[in-house]
């Protein structure tokens, strides 16, 4: 299993080639190929989880090979407690995504080929330890996403796709500038581990046009990642893309692609610019607050269920941002509060995973009802609880998970984010607890309008959720429940890595000199 990471990345490409060879009429074979490919990949991620040494906070399963020596670019892979859960989540959601896409009618071959290409891109970003490689994979994701939304989406798909593309490209370009800035400022290397060692010292005190280089690069990279998260005010591509994208793509978009933003900020911004963390932490927490409140209020006003769920992502990622900011609590200025830093960063990373499963579940459930009723107008339903009791029950659990009910995983990570950030950002945290109420308000109000009341006669023959749909949603539900009751297996995996990130940020920041 020395090359397990490479296998994870390139396996979907092999699947894609097989899909490309299969004649386009054999749709069933294409689907099965995609299912087998992602299935194997998911199993491999589980093996990786099993073999992972959770006591070790550094990179594991590393692979290194020379690639473009003249620019010091290498094929460098590795996994740690920050990326491992995301890798497993990627494996799971792509596998589930195949079954969510099972009923796609149009151009099946093209769809699954792009789907698998996307898979490679996502896996690659999480596993790359070379900035150049990271960027390549980052761009590789963009292309299939553009086509998947633009060709298989809803009525406004082209507009949504181009908007998504330009928005993200804008972010990528800023990111590229940031990466190149780092490359030249830190002894011409793209290696992330090496940069993590060098950059904090090399950038210290460096000025560009009279501005601290750290601030410049921090902002460039932050905007690049913030668009993915999405952080207010870079979030408007998200509701549109979600509403137009086919269900499976919404699932992946919310479940994994948004996490790339948070992942990138922690991996790159936190790793390479610890000073920037201090400089930016208040802004980060404040942006989190805006995400929570703005996203929550927007969700409350939505009439389209899918858009509501999309805005709930904006709202939920806000908690992650607040939690991330808590890292500074461990610094001397804030009383070396390691408890708070662990709670906050751990909560933020846990929230990424939990939002990944919960929002995936929500989008699948929206897809189920859309498939039957051919619309998503919240007001257009009513009384479905008596018609589709199983669907209602599952949706209830998903909604309650979304509103942060204890016993379901979302609660723990949200609570950790709050508790962690509280010592340093009291006002911001207190203000953002309004999210506790907003979440409940928009989910329960929507739930009432869709499921309660007298059954709308139009829907008296709406079929119950079927076995295939259950198969896609039940695993996510069980995960949500499992980690809600027993979060230790997850937190054990990440905690050593979280400690090394916190220590890294704290020990290498010399904020005063910036």
């Amino acid at each position, binding site marked *: 299993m020395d090359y397990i990471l490479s296998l994870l990345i390139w396996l979907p490409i092999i699947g894609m080639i097989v899909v490309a060879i299969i004649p386009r009429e054999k749709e069933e074979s294409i689907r099965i190929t995609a299912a087998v490919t992602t299935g194997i990949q998911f199993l491999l991620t589980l093996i990786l989880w099993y073999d992972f040494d959770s006591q070790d906070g550094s990179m594991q399963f590393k692979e290194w090979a020379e690639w473009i020596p003249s620019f010091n670019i290498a094929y460098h892979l590795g996994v740690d407690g920050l990326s491992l859960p995301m890798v497993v989540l990627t494996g799971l959601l792509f596998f589930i995504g195949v079954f969510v896409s099972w009923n796609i009618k149009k151009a099946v071959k093209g769809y699954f080929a792009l789907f698998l290409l996307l898979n490679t891109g996502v896996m690659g970003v999480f596993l790359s330890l070379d900035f150049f490689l990271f960027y390549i994979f980052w761009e590789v994701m963009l292309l299939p996403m553009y086509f998947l939304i633009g060709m298989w989406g809803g009525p406004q798909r082209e507009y949504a796709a181009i908007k998504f593309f330009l928005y993200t490209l804008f972010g990528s*370009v800023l990111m590229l*500038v940031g990466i190149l*800035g780092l490359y030249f400022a830190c002894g011409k290397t793209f290696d992330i581990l090496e940069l993590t060692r060098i950059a904090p010292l090399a950038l210290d005190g460096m000025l560009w046009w009279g501005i601290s280089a750290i601030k410049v690069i921090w902002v460039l990279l932050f905007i690049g990642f913030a668009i993915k998260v999405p952080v207010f005010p870079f979030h408007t591509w998200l509701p549109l893309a979600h509403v137009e994208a086919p269900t499976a793509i919404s699932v992946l978009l919310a479940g994994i692609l948004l996490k790339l933003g948070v992942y990138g900020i922690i991996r790159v911004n936190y790793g390479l610019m610890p000073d920037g963390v201090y400089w930016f932490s208040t802004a980060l927490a404040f942006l989190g607050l805006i995400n929570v409140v703005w996203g929550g209020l*927007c969700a409350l006003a939505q009439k389209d269920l899918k858009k509501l769920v999309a805005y709930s992502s904006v709202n939920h990622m806000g908690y992650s941002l607040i939690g991330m900011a808590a890292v500074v609590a461990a610094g001397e200025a804030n009383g070396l509060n390691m408890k708070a830093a662990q709670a906050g960063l751990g909560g933020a990373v846990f929230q990424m995973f939990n939002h990944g499963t919960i929002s995936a579940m929500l989008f699948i459930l929206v897809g189920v009802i859309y498939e039957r009723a051919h619309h998503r107008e919240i007001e257009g339903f009513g009384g479905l609880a008596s018609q589709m009791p199983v669907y209602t029950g599952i949706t209830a659990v998903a909604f309650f998970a979304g509103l942060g*009910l204890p016993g379901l995983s979302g609660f723990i990570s949200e*609570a950790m984010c709050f508790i962690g950030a509280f010592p340093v950002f009291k006002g911001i945290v207190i203000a953002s607890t309004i999210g506790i109420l907003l979440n409940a308000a928009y989910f329960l109000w929507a739930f009432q309008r869709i499921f*309660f*009341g007298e*059954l709308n006669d139009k829907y008296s023959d709406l079929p119950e959720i079927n076995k295939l749909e259950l198969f896609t949603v039940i695993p996510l539900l069980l995960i949500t429940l499992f980690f809600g009751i027993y979060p*230790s297996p997850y937190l054990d995996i990440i905690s050593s890595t979280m400690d090394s990130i916190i220590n890294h940020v704290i020990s290498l920041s010399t904020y005063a000199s910036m």
Partner: protein
Amino acid sequence: MDMHIQYSLFILFLPLLAFLIQIFFGKRLPRQGDWVSISAIFTTLFFALIMFISMLTNYNPDFKQEASFVWLDMGEFQIRLGFLIDNITIIMLLIVALISTCTHIFSIKYLEDDIRYSRYFAYLGLFTFSMNGIVLANNLMSMYMFWELVGVSSYLLIGHWFEKKSAANASKKAFLTNRVGDIGFFIGIMLIYNAVGSFAFSDVFSGVSSGLIAGTTLTIAGLGLFMGAMGKSSQFPLHIWLPDAMEGPTPVSALMHAATMVAAGVYLSVRIFPILTPDALLLVAYVGGFTAFFAASIAITQSDIKKVLAYSTVSQLGYMILAVGTGVYTAAFFHLLTHAMFKANLFYGSGSVIHSMHHALHKKHDHHTDPQDMNNMGGFKDKMPITYWSMLLSTMAIAGVPIFSGFLSKDAILAGTLSFAQHNPQHFLLAIFGFGAAAITAFYMFRMMFLTFHGNPKIPDLIDDIHESPKEMTGPLILLGGLSFFIWYTLPNYNPFSTYGWFTDLVKPMNAVVPGNMTAEEIEAGAHHAHYLAMYVSIGVAAFGIFLSWLFYIKKGLSAEVWAKRWGFLYDWSINKYYFDENYDKYIYQPTLRLAEKIAWIDWELYDKYFINGFGRLINWVSKISGKIDYDFIDQIIVDGTGKAASLFGRTFKKIQTGKLQNYVLYVTAGVIILMVIQSF
């Protein structure tokens, strides 16, 4: 493992098991699986009784067992979950198990033929599990978690008949109003954890006594936690959800919205009493006292039998909170105990009446007459003797008639309040609230009894079809009616005028850990001193209230209609619940929704369509202009005029001026990079 811990594990998890069985298999089991839930709850009751009996035989006021485990571990940051079992816990477990058992039994007939019969029993199990979780919690975090779960079971059970819009609205309202309180609860938890570094009650107490958190911060933290209690115990101004919660089935109202769940707020206040500062306590006292009086003044005009009881519950919870605020927090818990029994019974009684009304109306195919409206009742006394006598006993208890349980517990609260007012004459209002509410309570409770059971039937042709309820329903009525007598709470003493007995022996007030607060002895001495005066006054006001009620509704010496007119605006306020729902709707809900719509509009129509897309349009425009310059000016005039070589250059240049956004961004980028490279060398 200690016996208490083991039994508690059973008590906690058996109802959860029943919930799981019911939710997945209930419909397929014989009798829709009600026997699964009922056997689980009986076993729970059995274990609770054993613990209770062992408490009585050991007779140790300082009994305490604690057990916990690390639930979540990040290294330094840990959350431990665990049990705290002392005498308060044991009594509370018995209350929950007993009332829950009665509710299960009562529901067999009450919900017979209900379309979601098994679902209903499943949710009862979920509730019992969550409630016991609150009771057993040894730390704030697990309490908060079960607190929310209780909220969900309440949501599900209030919305049991979700086809009715009013039920669906009520369930949502209950959950959201509670969440408002929970925000405070969570902020309180964060403030305390931030200072003390632990969630466990014992650590919090020692942390406060060693001054880790003090002054205003402690006051705010305490009030934050109390805000949670206000939500759950339906205290002003978060009282609005409880009356609406009556949309749920009546046995649920008895269990959750009278006896146990709403008492969780009081339970929390009792648990955190030692860390409440004098300022916090004063506010607590005012909230409780005002709620007691205010809710009573609404109950007086309601005609829906369940609404009367609902406002009465709000008012009685206010009493308990008042007791916590004035320092006699064991009296609050004592009242919680006696109130749980007689108020659950009153709800069962009302359920019995409604059940009978419902069947009588059904028989006549009348689906318009409201079976809960007391204006449609009257003269049921002889038709439903068990219900009548049982309810009468509980009514005497709540009205504070001697030899009944409520007299003792209410007296203990009023003595504490009076003593507080004597020591702090500026807060005499609290005593007025307390005694005033006592008088009103006696009045409206007897009004309810008179309107329902006495006088002439208001719908004469209905009375023949009114029958006593089946024994599944009268059983709990007989049991809890009997438990309205004082003797059960004072054994081994027989003096009906003294609270002294097993309860006062086993539940001793703890000293506050806040430096400078009054000690338990001082508070007790004060209450003891005020005891006789409080007792005389409370007997007096109760008698006055009952007499007035008799005068109005039996003797008809005074006409309710005339008095309602005479006090027109007060009557109007009361019957309309002081227009709280209307005003909240007008000044809170609607503006929030409008704000949300405004924000969504700004986000989508303004910011995205104009700013973000405008950005795109701007670049488009720039690229068109530059394309024009490129072709018309550079190419046509300069390039063409400077020969072949230059023309070649021009064409190459034109190629990259594609007008595509990506390319432009790339060129900008390249420029920046070059600048950076220059800078870094």
